[in-house]
């Protein structure tokens, strides 16, 4: 791979550029894997409310997230990204948590829409007040619902985060307590 290399390049690269004989590229294994991981994010196919419509629109040909390597999978065991799209109810919370735990490491979470982020307009007995309470979230996408451009922006942001963090140095996020599925799971307020 010949080209212009500045003086900061490693000696072997400079040598390769000088001779033109060796087509080599030096990098770390972590960077290579991170590059591959960031460009092959496979989200799990599941939607909980109206945000899922925008999520589907993002994957459809008009916005076509396939071009970023985002290919929807139908099983948590084949996925590395969970896009929580829609209102999470207290009854659904243990299911979402179990789906997250079924995903293999390394894994990331995008919280899509204000309902997922903080309960949105539903300050009610049945709605989880933010998915952060049950699973660790990497990227929040505000909106009601967010447009596909916003979700694409979140995917690009997550790609940048993966490249910065390094996929081999990925650490499991601290998990919030497991939801009980019974109300908000806290002591009643008086």
């Amino acid at each position, binding site marked *: 791979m010949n080209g212009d290399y500045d003086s900061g390049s490693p000696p072997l690269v400079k040598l390769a550029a000088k001779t033109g004989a060796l087509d080599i590229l030096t990098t770390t294994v972590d960077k290579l894997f991170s590059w591959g991981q960031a460009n092959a994010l496979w989200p799990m196919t599941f939607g909980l409310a109206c945000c899922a419509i925008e999520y589907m629109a993002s994957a459809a040909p008009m916005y076509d997230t396939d071009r970023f390597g985002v290919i929807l999978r139908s099983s948590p065991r084949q996925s590395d990204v969970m896009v929580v799209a829609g209102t999470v109810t207290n009854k659904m919370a243990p299911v979402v948590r179990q789906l997250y735990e079924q995903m293999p490491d390394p894994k990331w979470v995008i919280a899509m829409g204000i309902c997922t982020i903080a309960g949105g307009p539903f*300050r*009610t*007995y049945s709605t989880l*007040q933010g998915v952060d309470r049950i699973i660790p979230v990497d990227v929040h996408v505000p909106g009601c619902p967010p447009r596909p451009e916003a979700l694409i922006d979140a995917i690009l942001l997550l790609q940048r985060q993966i490249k910065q963090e390094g996929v081999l140095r990925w650490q499991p996020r601290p998990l919030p307590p497991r939801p009980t*599925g*019974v109300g*908000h799971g806290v002591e*009643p*307020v008086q």
Partner: protein
Amino acid sequence: MIETSYEQKYTPDELLGKVSGLLGSSITRSEIYRDDVAVEVPSDRIFSVLNSLKSDPDLDMAMLVDITSVHWPDDELEFEVVYHLRSMSGNLFMAVKTRVADGQSVASMTPLWKSADWQEREVYDMMGIPFENHPDLRRILLPEDYQWHPLRKGFPLEGPDFPIDAHQTDAHNKVEPDDFWGDAS
């Protein structure tokens, strides 16, 4: 070619007269509101009333469309169960209502209509009205271990167990009034 008639078999007045003749003294109250016929019967007769409405060949109320409930907290019999009936042969619609007190049960309609199963479970779940002889009276929408019945009038929208850190709190961690929708007063 199939001839389809959308005409109703009876006018609302004729339907109420027919129902009154069939049920007689069981009816404690009846009304026609915007051509919708509704009758109220005591809760101990609700099963026989609905059974006779279903089995009567002229009325033929063969379909149970829905079971709903209303909470009137100021009344002595504070819970009202409403049965919406449909006659497919006569293109007729009517409602049958009954009143119960808190904790008092209503006869289950599952022997008459299988579809009453989940509808009664929903009424039990949201309003807390128990149904006698129901085959499987569990909660259906809310978690099975949930302690409250949220559609009762006294129930706070956020629930008694709303997480305190999701409220607007002051320096003493005291819950402030709900300012999410602005000050309405």
